[in-house]
C-alpha cells in the first residue's frame, strides 16, 4: 500500500527547484493543495499499474509510423 505524505509549500519549492521553476511563496501556496490531491490519485494509479499482471503493458504513447496504421482498422 502506498502512503501519502501531504504536499506542503516547502515540498513544492523543492520540486520547483528540481524542475528549474522557481515559484514565489504565493505560488507555492496555490500549487500545494492541487498537487496534493492529484499526487495521491496518481500514486494510487502507479501502484496499480506496477503490479505483476501488467508487467508487459506498453505505454500508449509511441512513435507514429505513417503508413502503418491500416492494421488498426477494426470495422
Amino acid at each position, binding site marked *: 500500500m502506498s502512503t501519502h505524505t501531504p504536499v506542503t509549500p516547502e515540498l*513544492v519549492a523543492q*520540486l*520547483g527547484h528540481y*524542475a*528549474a*521553476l522557481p*515559484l514565489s511563496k504565493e*505560488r507555492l501556496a*496555490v*500549487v500545494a493543495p*492541487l*498537487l496534493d*490531491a*492529484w*499526487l495521491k*490519485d*496518481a*500514486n*494510487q*494509479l*502507479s501502484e*496499480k*499499474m*506496477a503490479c505483476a499482471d*501488467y508487467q508487459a*503493458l*506498453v*505505454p*500508449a*504513447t509511441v512513435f*507514429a509510423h*505513417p*503508413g502503418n*496504421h*491500416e492494421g*488498426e*482498422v*477494426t*470495422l
Partner: protein
Amino acid sequence: MSTTSELLELSLTQAAALVKSRQVSPVELVDASLARIAEIDGDLHAYISVYTQAREVAKAAEIMQAAGHDLGPLHGIPIALKDNIALKGLRTTAGSKVLSDWLPDHDATIASRLRASGAIFVGKLNMHEFAWGGTSDNPHYGAVKNPWDTSRFPAGSSGGSGVAVAARTCWGAIGTDTGGSIRLPSAINGIVGIRPTYGRVSNHGIIPLAWSMDTAGPMTRTVEDCALMFGTMAGHDAKDPTTAKVPVSDYMAGLRHGVKGLRIGVVPGYFFHHLQAPVEKAVRQALSTFEQLGAQLVEVDIHNIHGNISAQLTIESCEPSTYHQRWLRERPLDYGEDVRTLLEVGEMLLATHYLQAQRYRSLLRQEFMDAFAKVDVFICPTLPFTATPLGDMKVVIENGIEEDMLSAIMQYTGVPSLTGLPSLAVPCGFDQDGLPVGMQIIGKPFDEATLFRAGAAFQSCTDFHHKAPPI
C-alpha cells in the same frame, strides 16, 4: 427569400440545400450570421474575432455558383473556428494573452479542407485559455456565457463554439477535444459534437494542449449537420503523422438506416453512478428510446474503468506543461490564474506518473476493444451535471458535497480521450431549470458512421435538437 430569423433557424443541411438550389444566397446567410453576432455577442462573448470580410467571400461564392462551380457540400455556409486553429494572416490567440498578436503563416489543414468544401469563415471563437480547462471563463477575452441562461457557464474548452452554434450565430463550428472539450460544451449548450477517433482528423495548424489526446471536430445543431461537416474534414494528412491512412466513409449514407439490432453497452457501476438525478433520468430515457427503436442494451463490466480521471489529469497536465515550459518561465504573468496553476502543477509530476498513466491507457483501451465483441457502441452521460453558475470552480453533484470542477467534469469524457475512441455528444433532455442534458455515444475506432447513424435515429424521434435558447 426569407427573414433573417427564418434563415438562422435552418439546419446546416437545409441551408446548404437551399444554396445549391439557389433559393438562398451565400450573401444572405453571411449577412444573417453577422447581424446575429452583432445583436447578441456583446453579452455572450462567444467570438474573439469577427470577419466582416466574409461578405466579400460570400459574393465570390455567389459568382462561382453562377458560373457553374460547386465548391462542395458547404458551399456558401457560414462556419466559425475555435481560436486555436490557425488561419493564415489572421490573429489566432488560443484564448491567450501569450498569443494575442500571433498571425500564423499557414492555414490549419482542417481550415483548408473546410474552405475547399465551400465554407465561409465568419469568425474565431472564444475558449478556455489554451484549451486547458472546462469553463471558458476567459480572463483575456471575457467569460463565455450560456445562451440558455446567461448566468451559467457554457462548459469548455470549446465554449465559444458551443454557444455560437446554440445561439444561431453560424451553422456549424469547429472545436477541439482533448479531455472533453467538444463534448462538454455540446452537452451544456444542447447541441451535437463529435470527438473523432484519434488520428481521424488532422491536428496540423492547431495549437496543442496534449499531443497524445488532442482531436478536432465539428459542432452543429443536428447529427446530420455534424456528419456532413465531418466528411469534409476527415482523412489522412501528410502534415500530421498521427493521422491514419484509413478510408473516409460516406457519413451521410447510413443516417436513415436506423438502429434495429444495434447492441448498446452500458457499464452500470460507472455510467449511472455519481451524477445529478435529472441527468440520469434523461440518459436512461434516451436508452429506452433506443430500445423502442429496436436496439438492445447489454450490461458490460469494464473492470479497470476506475482510475481514468487521474490518468487523464496526469497526461493532460504533463503534456501542456512541456509545451508551455518556456513561456511559463518567461511570461508567467501573461497566463490566467487557473491555467498558470495547472501548468505549474504539471511540472511537479514525475515521469513515472506520466508513463504509468500512459500504460493505463493501453489497459483501458484493450478492455474496451474486448468489449466491442459484445456491443457496437456504448452510451453514457456526457457529464454528470448541468450548467453551473458562471465563475464557480466547485460543483455539487449529490449529497450537497462540493467537488473540484475539473475532476468532476471529466467523469465520463475521459474514457474516449484516453482510449482514442470516437464519441458523439447528442442532446437528450433538459433539467428542471430548462438547462440541456447530453449523452455521448462511444464507438469502435474509425467507426464514426455508426455513431452518426445512432444519433440520427435518436433525433428522428425526439425534438431536443429543435429547441432554441431564449436569447
